[in-house]
C-alpha cells in the first residue's frame, strides 16, 4: 500500500543522508528526505505534522546550513591566507 511505499522511501532516504560525503550535497539530500517524511506523515493521517515538516525541511534548515557552510569556507580561505603571510 501507500504506507509501505512511503516507509521504504524514508528508510532509503535516511541511509542516503547519512552516507553522502560532501556537506553541500547532504543538504540537498536532506531536503528531499524531508519531502519523503512529509509524504509519510500525510499517509499516516497527520496533516498538521506534514505541514510543519515541509516548511521546516525546505526553508528552515537548508538556509541555515548553507549560510554556515559559506561562513566556514570564508574562514578557511582567511586562515590559509594568514598562514601564507606568516610562512
Amino acid at each position, binding site marked *: 500500500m501507500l504506507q509501505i511505499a512511503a516507509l521504504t522511501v524514508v528508510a532509503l532516504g535516511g541511509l542516503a543522508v547519512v552516507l553522502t560525503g560532501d556537506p553541500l550535497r547532504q543538504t540537498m539530500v536532506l531536503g528531499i528526505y524531508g519531502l519523503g517524511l512529509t509524504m509519510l506523515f500525510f499517509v499516516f493521517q497527520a496533516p498538521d505534522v506534514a*505541514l510543519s515538516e515541509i*516548511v521546516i525541511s525546505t526553508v528552515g534548515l537548508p*538556509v541555515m546550513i548553507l549560510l*554556515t557552510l559559506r*561562513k566556514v569556507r570564508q574562514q578557511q580561505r582567511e586562515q590559509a591566507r594568514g598562514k601564507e603571510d606568516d610562512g
Partner: protein
Amino acid sequence: MNRTGRLIMFGISAVALAAVLVKGFAGLPHFGDYTGVYGTVINGIGVTERHATDLVTALNFDLRAFDTLGEEFILFASILGVVLILRELREEREHPHQEEAEEHSFAGASAAWRALALGLIPAMIVLGGYIVLHGALTPGGGFQGGVILAAGPLAVFLAGRYLRMKVVAPQPLVEAGESIGALGYALIGLGGLIFAGVFFKNFLPLGTPGHLLSAGQMPLASIAVGLEVSGAFLVGWTEFLDQAMVIKEQG
C-alpha cells in the same frame, strides 16, 4: 582510540542496540491496533467540549497548553544561544559598505526575478497569517504559520539582494516581535489563572465551533506563538546572514 577502533566498538553496540529496540518494539500493540484511552476520549468529546474542530491545535493550545509553554521557551532559549554565540564573533570588523552591498547580490538576479520575489512576499505573509489564525479550524496553528510568516522576508534574501532582508525585517522589530510573542503566551496562561482559577484554563467565551473567533483563547495563543516562532527564525537567519555575508576578518 583511532577511527577504526571506534567504528568497531560502534558496530558491536549498534547490533546490541538494534536487538534491544526490536525486542522493545515487538511488545507494542501491532501497528494500527490503537488501544489508548486518552486519544479515543479526546476524539469523542473534543469538539463539543472545546468548540474547536482541529483537535491537534486544541490539544496544543488548550488542553495541553502547559507543555506548549515549555516547548516554546526551549525555542526562545535556543535562538538566544545562537545570538549570544554568533554576536561574540563580531570582534571582526564589519564591512557593510554600499559598493560591497552591491557585490553581495546574486549575479544572475534580473529585475524580473526580483519582481517575482517581491510579489511573493505579501502572498506568503497572507498565507502565514491565514494558517496562524485558522489554527483551531483547519490544519495549521502557530508553529506552522510562524515559519511561513518568517519565510516572507526570506524571499528578499533568495532573490539575490542579500542585505536588503535586514531592511525588510529590521532587527529591533523582529526581536521585539519575538519577545512579545513569548510574553503574550505566558500572559494568556496567567489570564487563565486570574480569571478562571487554573493556569491556562480557557477563560474566554468558547463560541460556536467552525467560526473564526471560536474556541476561546486558541486564536490568541496561536497568534502569540506565531509571532514568537517567526521572530525566532528571522533572528536566527539574520545572525547567520551577518556572519556569512557582512563580516570580514581584520587584515
